[in-house]
């Protein structure tokens, strides 16, 4: 009887350990994403949050929100250029026109990759990792 109990307990422990091992192991991509995302949240706090808000909500008709997943998707290739060099002229975000000038941030490519990964996967957006390599390619094509 005692043996049976000990036996079943050890089986349960074994099963728990094995499942624990499996779930704690993440794929390389997941780890990379988390690294980009968490660094990006720090860049966001210091460089973007004052204007775009804690939740990417923007500021009324003055500063656009970062919650327009569709805009971010369509303009994915030019996001790096916008972050680095700023933005002038009109843009249409969620059917509202914004005309204010966004100043250049002067961030390094890796910081841009971090912050873009953060923004495009926060505030209701979900588009995966934007890598350093991707950002460098996009920056080469800035107009």
């Amino acid at each position, binding site marked *: 009887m005692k043996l049976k109990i000990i036996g079943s307990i050890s089986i349960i422990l074994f099963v728990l350990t094995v499942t624990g091992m499996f779930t704690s192991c993440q794929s390389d991509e997941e780890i990379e994403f988390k690294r980009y995302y968490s660094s990006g949240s720090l860049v966001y706090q210091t460089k973007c949050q*004052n*204007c775009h*808000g804690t939740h990417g909500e923007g500021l*009324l008709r003055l500063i656009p929100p970062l919650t327009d997943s569709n805009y971010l998707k369509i303009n994915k290739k030019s996001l790096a250029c916008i972050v680095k060099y700023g933005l002038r002229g009109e843009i249409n975000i969620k059917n509202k026109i914004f005309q204010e000038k966004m*100043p250049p941030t002067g961030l390094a490519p890796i910081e841009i990759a971090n912050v873009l990964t953060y923004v495009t996967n926060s505030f209701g957006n979900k588009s995966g990792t934007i890598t350093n390599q991707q950002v460098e390619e996009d920056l080469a094509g800035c107009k």
Partner: protein
Amino acid sequence: MKKLAGAIAVILLWNACKFNSEKKTLPIYGNRTPITKVVNGQTTTDTIYQTIPAFKFIDQYGDSINNKNLDGKIYVADFFFTTCPSICPIMQRNMLDVYNTFKNTNDVKILSYTIDPKHDSVAVLKKYADKLGITGNSWWFLQGKKDDTYRLAEKNYLVAVKPDSTVAGGYIHQGYFVLIDKKSRIRGAYDGTKPDEVKQLIADIKTLKSEPDQPAVK
């Protein structure tokens, strides 16, 4: 055990009530000078507090605003410029809370002085106010001579502003919201970039509103 907990709760509640019933008054800031007068053979000493001097600026509607428009009004003053990329958006976001709390109250105003009057013309200020959804006459965006604005900021509102080509936007300025009472005296300064301090400002404006009117010291 239950009785003990009950007793503690009662004591805590009682203390809380006692604490709340104490009437809070706000300090008066700035320089003060005592003046001694002899009235009917009695020597009395009064204190003259630092007040905001006469000024004249133009608001976002192109109307002239001077200190007479603020007689008997409580107001909050801050300094900003429309192209400010650093702390202004967060200040305006917080000031909007103040605006929305008091916009239907006649005796509370907000004055935002631009420190870049060359760029921030009346038209630019009007557009800016529109984009923030500001209507009516409770939040004025004021434009005046640069020297007047800077002097007012530093000497009177005790807020530091100055041009600096090394910082983003070209100016450094402190993000203080300065609270002025109905007698033009400074009653508080709050970091406009911190939501908690702005909450305190809103509470303090309510305290000021309930303050009995004191005779003006001339």
